[in-house]
């Protein structure tokens, strides 16, 4: 390969003097009449390089127009399009796919929630709502996961004393300690002790004296431990299919399945 010409102006060192003229060539501006002849030749060559279209310069026009028509038509892409073209044209309309993706996400979430409801895997309040509205199984009170009862010798109630009272009144008790949560039980049905049938009416023996609430469990008379109480209802009444979450330690009888009792308030 030959080296570049040092410059178009003989007798001048370097090529920096021709730079304005070279810039004019690059910008396709006409050269001044006094420019060196090689530059005029070069200008003619560059003009030819940027000349009008020749045969073959418009190759691909039909394909480009077809792609333009496909883009505009709702029918989409024909099978005659090249594979790369199909890939790009089908991957392009992301705006049209957004509602579809949102609908699919909502449907998947609904299906998953329904499946979880029928599997009984939802939290108890939500499971209860699902039980009422879509016929899912009623909430299952997993007593094995109940919170530990705080055993205290103080006359303070054994419930979570640090938690706000208003908050506790809205909760379904996780631990079956009716005495510790006696303020909750006034809302819920009570069961006749020792009876062979279930009742939703308050039982006299189990009714606490409102003026003298039940004493707080103490170390000398401890309430059943969470572990014991979790086994208690199921083991002490093996003939029942379903049992009430309330223990029989205070003389309450679990409700057999099918008993028509009012629903537990969840809020």
């Amino acid at each position, binding site marked *: 390969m030959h080296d*570049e010409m040092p410059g178009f102006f003989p007798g001048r060192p370097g090529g920096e003097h021709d730079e304005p003229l070279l810039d004019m060539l690059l910008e396709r501006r006409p050269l001044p009449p006094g420019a060196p002849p090689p530059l005029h030749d070069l200008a003619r*060559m560059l003009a030819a390089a940027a000349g009008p279209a020749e045969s073959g310069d418009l190759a691909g026009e039909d394909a480009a127009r077809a792609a333009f028509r496909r883009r505009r038509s709702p029918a989409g892409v024909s099978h005659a399009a090249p594979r790369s073209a199909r890939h790009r044209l089908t991957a392009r309309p992301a705006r049209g796919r957004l509602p579809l993706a949102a609908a699919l996400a909502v449907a998947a979430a609904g299906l998953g929630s329904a499946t979880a409801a029928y599997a009984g895997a939802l939290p108890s309040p939500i499971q209860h709502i699902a039980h009422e509205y879509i016929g899912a199984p009623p909430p299952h009170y997993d007593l094995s996961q109940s919170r530990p009862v705080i055993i205290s010798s103080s006359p303070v109630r054994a419930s979570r004393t640090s938690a706000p009272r208003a908050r506790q009144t809205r909760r379904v008790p996780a631990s079956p300690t009716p005495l510790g949560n006696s303020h909750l039980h006034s809302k819920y049905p009570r069961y006749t002790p020792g009876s062979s049938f279930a009742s939703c009416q308050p039982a006299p023996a189990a009714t606490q004296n409102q003026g003298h609430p039940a004493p707080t469990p103490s170390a000398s008379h401890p309430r059943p431990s969470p572990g014991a109480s979790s086994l208690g209802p199921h083991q002490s009444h093996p003939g029942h299919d379903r049992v009430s979450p309330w223990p029989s330690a205070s003389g309450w009888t679990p409700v057999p399945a099918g008993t028509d009792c009012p629903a537990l308030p969840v809020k």
Partner: protein
Amino acid sequence: MIGAAFRDTLADAKAGDEAAFTRLFRDVQPALLRYLRLIAPDADDVAGDTWLQVVGGLERFRGEEQDFRAWLFTIARHRAVDSGRSRARRPAIPLEMTEAEQQPTISDAADQALEAVSTRAVLELIASLPGDQAEIILLRVVAGLEAREVARIVGKSPGAVRVAAHRGLRKLAGLTALPDAERAGTRPGVTH
């Protein structure tokens, strides 16, 4: 170049007017193919991919004619690079002559360029330059892009683009200024 009517043409093409799109295509396609034939062996396929991408992004494009050309040549260069990578993963063994062997010699091209000033001969002469110089000259002269636009496309500074273009032009002038006897003995291949 379309000129003052470019805005209306672009707006019509965006609205779905095929005639307006065809006008855009015919205005740019010759320069696009001449550029791609320099940098990509499968220039026609790369040009097709480029126009597919242009069609897909036409509605979102905002700008003037110079911006449109810069956008299109940027896409073309990216597609050419992709095509080159794809070819590199699938190397092909030439059955007969290699492409370099089929290229006309510089002396032939210089003769034709000076005598008939044919576009093809001039492009072949430009193709004999080092790759970056040839690409920059084509983008500046054939595609009609500014130095800063070319710099953005090729990934160089505007100053480096200017220097490379000047060197390339001087080499072209040197090739065409060679005496006939000396030119007859030069058969260098295409350097990229």
